């Protein structure tokens, strides 16, 4: 079976103000079809870079990307992307934002509208369609983004710390909703986060990245917690704690390294 997303020796280097900077180096990763994989790593280690490569938004300096067995050229049309920061079009109402993808594909307006309304209802925003993004709360905006992505039914979901800006309660709520939506048709998910607990609670597999620059994967852990899961409750189970302990130990040095680097960088 072909992997949903396959990165083969991907290296990304940027020409910065202080000379060339290698964000990720020789990263080889494969996300299986229907698999929920989280990528964790210290802040600033290039997690988003990897995701942008998988999305086709960023061309790697070297290495190749394969999506569902085919080499990726240009934007990844098989993937939906959920961004960390505000990504909704502020001049479109909530409903029009959810419709956008269908509209771009030439779906007739009334049909797109019907479907968008159904999706809004599914993410708990029925009746909020006429509001503009600035009139919604942070959690509601994230739900809109989720609906906006899922309405196109992409086989692959790329999520870049999508819930990091939310408060902890809203966040757990959204995580559970995400798992529920995911379990309905088991899309392949690449979930970027810096929160190890979130990663373990959601995923089938957790990939740990080293501190930047020249980030690479340093560990891979299968998460054998039973599904369906409740992200709040599962955190209290002994198996979860054992997994957390193991992964945290492998990460700790890298986190400290990353922290020291950022501190030196700001000091310099």
């Amino acid at each position, binding site marked *: 079976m072909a992997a949903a997303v396959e990165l083969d020796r991907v290296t990304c280097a940027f020409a910065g103000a202080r000379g060339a900077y290698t964000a990720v180096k020789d990263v080889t990763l494969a996300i299986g079809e229907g698999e929920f994989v989280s990528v964790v790593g210290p802040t600033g280690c290039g997690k988003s870079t990897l995701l942008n490569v998988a*999305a086709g*938004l960023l061309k790697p300096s070297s290495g190749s990307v394969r999506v569902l067995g085919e080499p990726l050229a240009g934007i990844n049309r098989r993937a939906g992307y959920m961004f960390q920061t505000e990504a909704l079009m502020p*001049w479109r109402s909530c409903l029009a934002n959810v419709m956008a993808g269908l509209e771009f594909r030439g779906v007739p307006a009334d049909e797109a509208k019907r479907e968008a309304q159904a999706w809004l209802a599914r993410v708990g925003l029925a009746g909020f369609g006429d509001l503009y993004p600035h009139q919604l709360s942070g959690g509601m905006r994230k739900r809109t983004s989720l609906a906006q992505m899922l309405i196109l039914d992409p086989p692959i979901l790329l999520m870049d710390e999508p819930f990091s800006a939310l408060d902890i309660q809203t966040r757990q709520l959204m995580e559970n909703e995400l798992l529920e939506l995911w379990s309905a048709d088991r899309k392949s998910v690449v979930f970027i986060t810096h929160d190890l607990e979130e990663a373990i609670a959601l995923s089938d597999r957790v990939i740990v990245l080293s501190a930047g620059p020249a980030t690479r994967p340093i560990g891979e852990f299968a998460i054998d917690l039973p599904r369906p899961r409740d992200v709040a409750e599962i955190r209290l189970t002994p198996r979860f704690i054992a997994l957390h302990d193991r992964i945290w130990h492998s990460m700790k040095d890298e986190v400290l390294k990353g922290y020291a680097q950022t501190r030196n960088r700001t000091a310099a």
Partner: protein
Amino acid sequence: MKRARLRLYQALLLAAVFTAWQVATQPDLLPPIVWENPNRAAFFFGEPLKMFQVIWTWFSEGTIYRHLWVTLEETVLAFCIGAAAGLVVGLWLGLSPIASAILEPYITALNAMPRVVLAPIFLVWFGLDIGSKIALGVTLVFFIVFFNVYQGVKEVSPVVLNNTLMLGANRRQLLRHVYLPSATSWLFSSLHVSVGMALVGAVVGEYLGSARGVGYLIQQAEGAFDINTVFAGILVLTGFALVLDVLVGEVEKRLLVWRPAQSETEQL
């Protein structure tokens, strides 16, 4: 403060200014302090009562409407042509780094040039009719709109842009659904200034040579040292500009519903 009371104070302030003006300029009302000749103050500064008389005659006899109409026509046409040209060129240069790099010094130079000096040239090119006034207004409006649109294109949120790309928008759809709305929102934020500039172009053009318009009225009165009529013209022009400004505000409110309004976050 209560709204009604605020309005009352504002009206009182206006009345006080005009009363003081009248008292200071009316011949023989105050003993001569500054000038020996009692008519000197009225000659230089006019008398508000006589100004209002002039304005009253203009409106009651209906002679002013012809002039107002011409000025309005020039203002509106100058604004529309200038804004359309600014929008197109702003979008083009905003999206084409090469063109903007080549044209950048020339645009800076054209903008730095005091364009009012072009008025006599336009008079030669387009004649005494409204053409030359519109041309002057266009040169003033164009740059304001151009710079705002250019900025609007440059400052489109990269996340919104990437999100729209991931939703499957092609280049044309990106222009239509992201760049254009973003640019027009900047255009509208400069609406008050650019409509004002269109009016400046119209009036200055009329002042320098024409047979109709409020600028023409003022210029004629100046030629006859009729200071009361000059001030009457200025007052009418001010009122006219205020009305335009209110209309622009209404249009803005309609078209920018999606923008967070100040009043929504105001403390009660």
